[in-house]
C-alpha cells in the first residue's frame, strides 16, 4: 500500500473519444495544461506547462492503447518531488469512466542501504489503505503538535 491521489470522473462520450481527449495534443491542451507535449509512446519525453507557468517534464511509461496511459513527471527546476501518473479509461453506462492515480516516487530511498532494505512495494497500493494512511498522517500531526 502507498499514499496516492485517486480521482474518477465519468465522461458522457464513448471510451474511444475519451482516449482521444487523453492523448491528442490539441485536446490535451484543453484540460491537462496550457502547453502540452505528450506523445503517447513509451519512453517519449514531453512537458506540461500550467496556467500559472509551472512547467513539468515528463516521460511516458506505459501505453495500452485505448485503455491505459502512464507517465512520470516532475517540476522543472522546482520543488523536486517526482511522481507517477496513471490514467485508465473504461466503458460505463454513461459513457467513459476515467480514473487517475498519482503517487510520489520515493527517489530518495535509493540514497541509503538501510532505507533500501525497507522499501515498501508501491505497486501494491489500494485506495482504502491510502485513505487510512492519510487519516493516520493527520492524526500523527495533531498528536505531534499537541
Amino acid at each position: 500500500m502507498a499514499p496516492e491521489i485517486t480521482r474518477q470522473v465519468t465522461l458522457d462520450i464513448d471510451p474511444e473519444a475519451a482516449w482521444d481527449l487523453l492523448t491528442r495534443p490539441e485536446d490535451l491542451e484543453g484540460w491537462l495544461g496550457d502547453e502540452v507535449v505528450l506523445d503517447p509512446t513509451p519512453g517519449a519525453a514531453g512537458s506540461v506547462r500550467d496556467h500559472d507557468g509551472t512547467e513539468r517534464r515528463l516521460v511516458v511509461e506505459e501505453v495500452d492503447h485505448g485503455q491505459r496511459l502512464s507517465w512520470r513527471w516532475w517540476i522543472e527546476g522546482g520543488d523536486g518531488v517526482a511522481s507517477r501518473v496513471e490514467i485508465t479509461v473504461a466503458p460505463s453506462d454513461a459513457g467513459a469512466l476515467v480514473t487517475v492515480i498519482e503517487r510520489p516516487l520515493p527517489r530518495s530511498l535509493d540514497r541509503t542501504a538501510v532505507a533500501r532494505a525497507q522499501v515498501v512495494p508501491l505497486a501494491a497500493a489500494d485506495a482504502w489503505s491510502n485513505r487510512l494512511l492519510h487519516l493516520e498522517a493527520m492524526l500523527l500531526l495533531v498528536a505531534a503538535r499537541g
Partner: protein
Amino acid sequence: MTRPVPADDAVGEVFAALADPTRRAVLRSVADDGPCTATELATRIPVTRQAIAKHLAVLQSAGLVATARAGREQQFSVTPGPLLDAGAWLTRTGTAWDDRLDRLQRLAHDRSRPRAASDGG
C-alpha cells in the same frame, strides 16, 4: 557525492516510510507518548527491540523523528515538518487533478452535445 535536498524531495520517502503499518504504530507511539527510547517502545508494541530500532532508522531517514542522547540510549521524538510537507503534497496534487478533470469533463460534454444533436436529427 551528496547534494542539498529540497524539502519536497523527501515527500516520496515520507510516504514510503509511512506505508508500513508497524512503522506507523511506532511513529504513533512516539507522537502519543512523547520522547522515548527503542527499549521503551518495545514494551508497548509487540515487536522486538531490534525491529523497533530498524523502523526508527527508516523514520529518522525520512526526517519523521529526531534523536537526543538519553544515558546510554537514544531518545526519539516526532518532527512534524515532513508530515506537513506530505499532507501539503496530497492536498496540492488532489486539487490540481480536481481542476484538470473538471476541464476534461466540460470538454467531453462539449463534444457530446453535437453528437447527441446529430444522432437525434
